[in-house]
Every structure is written in C-alpha cells, then in structure tokens.
C-alpha cells in the first residue's frame, strides 16, 4: 500500500531523510518511532503529498508522488497534532466543508455517521473553538475518515492531550484501524504505540534503523527494542 525507495529530502544544505526505504502492506498499522529531529514529520508530510521529495520514489495506494498527488489525496486521511479545523464553524459545518472538498456523496448521512463514530453527535452544532483539545482531536479524526480513505497518517495525535482524552482517542483510533485501513502513526508514546500498532519502525537521523512486528515481540519489550535500535545508531 505504501512503498518508499531511496527517499532523500533536503532543506537547503540540511539532509533530513537519507536514502530511506519503507514499505507498508495493506491493513498494517505501523508505529513510526524516533527521537525529536529524526525526520518523522517530514517523512509523513511527503507521504501526505504536502512536501516534495528531493530524490527517490514514493508510491501510496499504487500512485506515484508527487506526479499523481491528486489520486493519492483522495485515498488519504491525515491527522496531525494540529486539528486542521475552523474554530468559527461548528463541528457539522467543518465536516460539511471538508465533505464538499472531497466530493463525499450523501454528505448529511455521512456526517452523522462520522460524528457518531467520534462521539460528538451531541455537540454537532457547537463551534469548534468551544471544544476541548481532546474533542478537537476526535473531530480531526472524523474529518480525516469522512471520505473513508484507504490510508491514514497520524502525526503524533496524542500531543497535548490529558490521559482521559488520550484513552478516548485510542478507542477511536482502534475503531478506525479495525476497518482494515492502512495506518502509519508517528509517536513518542511507546506505551500507546505498543497498544495500537501491529508493527514498529524506528526512524533515526533520516533512516529506518530497526523494524519489528508486534507478534515477534512482547508489548512489554518495546522500550528495550527502541533503546537498542537507537543505541546501535548512536554507537
């Protein structure tokens, strides 16, 4: 579903991604772990067609980036630590706007389904600026799944959320994942990542330095795996 070969991304003289290879099968939930500055967000922005690769080949859902970006965007849902929502519109209006931008048919019915999914039906007519951070993030997930994308990218979705909001978000994320979507999520929270993902990749200094399936490793060993992977890179 996602295929990346020899990806390089430079900003001026600074190389952020160095010959990165990455593959995700359909239906996999991959947690992309790594320290600050490893290149996780840059990598996700390239997969999301928001940034152009300097070199290398990137394919999402069978379409090449950046040439076939529009086809990729139709199949992609993105959630970042920012909600990508308009504070002066209510929850329903935000979804209606994005629904029109994606050409979602039977939009009103779909909006109701999505608001049910993220548990915000009772607040559908409230302005987003009155929402707590957790509610905004749940609505952001609703926005991202509105057009039922095949691939979902989550960039540190738990950032800034308290424990209750994180738990609620996890429930929504699991519900999204069980629908067979392909998910790539960056995170610093190893405990949450181990609870959600089926595979763990460690990104450091612009390359994937380690990768393991959840079935090959107990969830309690993720911290050791992560430390080992970074230890090898840092010598």
């Amino acid at each position: 579903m996602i295929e990346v070969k020899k990806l390089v991304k430079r900003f001026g003289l600074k190389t952020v991604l160095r010959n990165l290879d990455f593959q995700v099968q359909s239906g996999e939930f991959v947690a992309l772990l790594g320290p600050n500055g490893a290149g996780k967000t840059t990598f996700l922005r390239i997969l999301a067609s928001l940034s152009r690769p300097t070199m290398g080949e990137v394919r999402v859902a069978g379409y090449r980036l950046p040439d076939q970006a529009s086809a990729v965007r139709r199949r992609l849902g993105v959630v970042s630590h920012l909600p990508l929502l308009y504070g002066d519109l209510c929850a329903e209006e935000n979804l209606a706007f994005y629904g029109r931008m994606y050409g979602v048919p039977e939009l009103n019915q779909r909006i109701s389904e999505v608001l049910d999914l993220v548990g915000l039906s009772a607040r559908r007519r409230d302005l987003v600026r009155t929402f707590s951070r957790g509610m905004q993030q749940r609505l952001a997930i609703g926005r991202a799944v509105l057009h039922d994308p095949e691939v979902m990218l989550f960039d540190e979705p738990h950032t800034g959320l308290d424990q209750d909001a994180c738990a609620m978000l996890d429930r929504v994320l699991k519900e999204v994942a069980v629908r067979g979507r392909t998910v790539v999520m960056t995170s610093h929270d190893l405990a949450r990542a181990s609870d959600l993902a089926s595979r763990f990749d460690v990104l450091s200094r612009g390359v994937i330095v380690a990768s393991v399936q959840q079935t090959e490793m107990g969830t309690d060993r993720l911290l050791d795996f992560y430390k080992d992977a970074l230890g090898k890179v840092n010598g």
Partner: protein
Amino acid sequence: MDNRPVLVDRPTFWRAMWAIVWKDMAAELRSRELISAMFVFALLVIIIFNFALDLDPGTRTAPSITSGVLWVTFTFAGTIGLNRSMATEKDRGCLDGLLLAPVDRSAIYFGKVIGNLVFMLLVEAILFPIYSILYNVNLFNPGLIFITILGSIGYVAVGTLLASMAVQTRTRDVLLPILLFPIVIPIIIGAVKGSTAFLQGLPMSEIWPYINLLIVFDVVYTTLAFLVFDYIVEE
C-alpha cells in the same frame, strides 16, 4: 457505523471553489473579526488624514485628494484583511487541510480570492458614505465605483498570492506589505488616476487609458498568481 466504502466523487473545480467561499463567509459571519478590523482601521486612516492634512474646504474636496486618500485607505485596510484571512488558514493548520483535499490548487486560490474580494468590497461600500459625509464629497459616481471594483480585483488577486506566501513565515504581518506594495503600484496608479478623472468629470477618451491599465494588470496578476500558487503553497 457500517462497513460500506464511501465512494468519493471527484470534486469539481467549481464545487471546491464555492465551498471555500461559503466557508469564509460562514466563519466571518460568526466572528466578524476580519471586516470589523478592516473597517475600524480604514475609518481611523480617513479621520487621521482629515486632521493631518488640515485641508481648507476647497482643497479637501479636490478630486486628486479624494482619490489619493481613498486608495491609501483601501490599500492599508486591504493588507489587514489579507493577513487575517490567511492567518485563519494557518492558525489551526487549516491550510494543510485545504492542500490535502483532492482538488485543483487553483480552486483554493480562486476561492480565497473571491472571499477576500467580497470582504474588501463590503468595507469599501461602507466607507464610501462615511467619507462622503466627513469630507463633504459626493462619491456616488458609477465610474468611481467601477474603478474601485477593478482596482480591488487586481489588489486582491496578487495580495492573496503573496499573503499565502507570507503566512508561512514568522514575520508574516511585516512581510506582506513589503512584498505587496511595490508590486501593486501599477494598480494603485491606475486606480488613483482613474478615480480622479471620474471625479473631475473628464471625457471617457481621457479615462480609458486608466481603465485599460487596470484591466491589463488585473488579467496579468490573476494569471501569474494562478500559475504559481501551486508552487508557493508547497514546501
């Protein structure tokens, strides 16, 4: 939520463009931040000119003074509107939300241009009677209104492009006027001269060159902005 896939229609250019216009109007109806900021600023500029120039009754109604003060006011107030309009897109990451939609990027550009133009024309429509009362000048001249619309189109066309560039920098409030004012000088010259000519009641043969100048720059700026918007908003 059922498990049927949501079939996404390919959103048309027009549907996406009007969705953006609708979104901007709906958000502004709620907050009234943009129009009220533009209006108050414009009103203050007019009042300050009234006292700063300390004009005698004969001079203050002179067509060249009237059109000069009007266009300085529109230019400054327009900058505030453009900055605010794009800041709304940037604040919660909404610009990324727009760029992730599978629509032609020019639909985003034209949607923002139409929204910004409506706000600018609205403020101008409110300022005309106020200026008429304060300066004791009759501004209800169809030719002057026509020139104001032409000038505003060119100003907003290039201003929206530059605002979408400036908003991605840390110094966005300062950067926009620095980038915009030198580029819109031909539009301002055409608008001021054309407005003066209409207020002086000159024959159309003497006014056409200014109208033509405005039309040419409107077309050139809109075309250039349409061609480069995709590259400007991408990293």
